[in-house]
């Protein structure tokens, strides 16, 4: 929420209001009924995921690579029991422990990947959109080409580049995160760049230029706050894609070394042959873990999308009519499942410069009613 307020007010050259209370509660307060329920469910799922990830060494019954405790071997492919709630794998490890430590791996990779793509994609988009010219055209061409490429393949190629196809100390979590980063950078680049192009000639940018502000200052102080509304949504939706990409890499045997960390995708790959023999527990639990985390993150992302775009509020903010929303190029439906409103394509990826997505110039929060 505070992002919306500050985005609107800095446009008027007023100091941004100070953030009060826990971040996120403001967003929560703006929701109603079903939407609030969905947001809470999503937040709860993420909270459980983060807690398990952080506390894994404390709450997991065994280490992720242990095949014995106190000198007693677990045995391979044991059905779920009191000693092993989720059973044991083909390698004789405890499935529950691997699922818990897998959460840790996933969290590390998500945080790294999203942070890295923000760090690279946002400044690149700002510079490209604000400065424009030949640099802009070349960057757009390159990122468009990368964007069109199947993201998993791109991640594989980058992963090869980093690790040389063999396991190195670097080859673990950082390599996976960088591989995923390369997939996401074009997305941030496109969103930020298109928004920057739209506000480049707004009066407040011109006036800043006249007063002699440096391009760097203009970009980060004047342009960035006005183009950043969609970034939280994109980052959230990307987080869910990061989990799927990480699992995909692991499933193809191209992720993190199994002895270095537990990874859900790798466990699912190992569980494939078990499934043919009717052993369900080795694959079911890591798979469910992926589904639940992606589900939680997606629910939060889509709720954020609705809330941070005041035009879409169906209840509470009655000032917006469908016509106004249509003028702004938005789907007036206000549907929970419509990512297109944040300048994102239907698959959660941002639309291209020629896509008919959100034009931040006229659909920013300033165009809507007062945020409550």
């Amino acid at each position, binding site marked *: 929420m505070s992002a919306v307020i500050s985005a609107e007010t800095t446009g008027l050259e007023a100091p941004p209001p100070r953030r009060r209370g826990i971040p996120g509660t403001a967003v929560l307060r703006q929701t109603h009924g079903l939407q609030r329920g969905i947001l809470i469910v999503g937040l709860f799922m993420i909270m459980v995921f983060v807690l398990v990830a952080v506390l894994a060494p404390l709450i997991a019954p065994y280490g992720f690579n242990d095949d014995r405790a106190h000198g007693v071997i677990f045995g391979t492919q044991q059905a779920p029991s009191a000693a092993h709630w989720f059973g044991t794998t083909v390698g004789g490890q405890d499935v529950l422990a691997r699922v818990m430590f897998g959460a840790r791996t996933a969290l590390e990779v998500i945080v790294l990947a999203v942070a890295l793509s923000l760090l690279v994609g946002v400044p690149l988009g700002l510079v490209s959109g604000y400065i424009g010219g030949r640099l802009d055209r070349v960057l757009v061409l390159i990122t468009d080409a990368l964007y069109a490429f199947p993201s998993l*393949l791109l991640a594989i190629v980058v992963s090869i580049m980093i690790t040389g196809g063999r396991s190195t100390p670097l080859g673990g979590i950082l390599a996976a995160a960088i591989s995923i980063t390369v997939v996401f950078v074009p997305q941030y680049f496109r969103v930020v760049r298109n928004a920057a192009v739209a506000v480049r000639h707004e009066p407040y940018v011109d006036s800043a230029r006249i007063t002699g502000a440096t391009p760097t200052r203009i970009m980060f102080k004047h342009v960035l706050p006005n183009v950043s509304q969609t970034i939280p949504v994109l980052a959230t939706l990307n987080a869910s894609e990061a989990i799927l990409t990480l699992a995909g890499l692991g499933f*193809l045997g191209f992720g993190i070394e199994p002895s270095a960390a537990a990874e859900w995708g790798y466990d699912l790959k190992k569980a494939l042959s078990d499934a043919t*023999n009717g052993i369900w527990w080795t694959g079911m639990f890591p798979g469910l873990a992926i589904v639940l985390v992606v589900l939680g993150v997606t629910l939060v992302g889509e709720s954020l999308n609705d809330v941070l775009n005041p035009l879409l509020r169906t209840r509470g903010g009655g000032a917006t009519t469908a016509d106004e929303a249509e003028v702004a190029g938005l789907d007036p439906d206000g549907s929970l499942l419509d990512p297109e409103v944040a300048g994102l394509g239907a*698959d959660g990826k941002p639309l291209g410069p020629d896509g008919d997505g959100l034009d931040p110039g006229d659909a920013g929060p300033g165009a809507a009613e007062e945020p409550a």
Partner: protein
Amino acid sequence: MAVRILPRSPLLRYLAVRLALIIPTVLILVTVVFFFMRVVGDPITAALGGRLSPDQLAARRAAAGFDRPILNQYLEYLGRLLHGDFGTALTDRRQISEVLVTNGAATLELTVWALIVAFAVGVPLGRLAARHRDRLGDVSIRVFAILVYAAPVFFLGLLLKLLFSSTLGWLPASGRAAPAVALELQNVTPRTNIMIVDAILYGDTGNIVDVLRHAIMPALALGLLTAGVFIRLIRINLLETMRADYVMAARARGVSEAKVVRKHAFRNALVPIVTVMGMQIAMMLGGAILTETTFEWQGLGYMLTHYLLARDFVAVQGIVTAIAVVVAVTSFLIDIINALVDPRVRY
């Protein structure tokens, strides 16, 4: 100045510009893939290092030309690509172009089956959700759409295997055909490598049924993923067109609600699907890699995994490059279709 050589008609000009844009797109992808894969070193050492002596490795490197400046190699690689020569796999000595044709047919078959599933599931469910907006039917269909998005294809595939193969025993767990059938189908001329076509050409009903039974689970796993996207699209677009003036006009004339949806709104709601199809192709090819590995479906994705694990980067590079070209060309074709179908497309 460049405008002069372009056609007058805006549509033709749009198509010309779009066609011209394919070249840099493909070139960028080929370049990125080439240099990314070479940063780590030469493919011979990667694939055979440790198995051959340093002298042998050096000899192989020299024979393959990997010891020369990287720029020369890159330009030569581009030149060979222009002639359709993707090189030879290091590990099994197969021609990459032959891999692309043979295994590409399998991927094509899988993608088509999956698209059929996606349309068959996504379109009716999307319509249903739009008609019952915000009621139980709508909510459950939307939850279903999120769930199939949240589940990785290989997990969905694993669940399908557990249910239909190992528990119920109805469907074969993997492969494209039973070994005996696959052997028989090798004798079909002309052999297309598209199993269902080969089976029909062979003309034995038992074979056709066997091929179909093998296709069900992979098609479901990959198709449902796309169906989730279709549901959301159809629903949103249908809701939007249902508000359009011409729909209201039809209602005012007393046209029945079912007919309004079917005749007036639905067709217009399909237009954006075509647009998204372009993006879906890339997503489906990514999904196909995982689906093929899950069901041992010997397509490009399966071969890619195989070569990845063998660290045969010449083969990997060839397959990845080919997929990049396919993606660029398909998105061009989709753009053309879109420009022809939708008069609102801006050139």
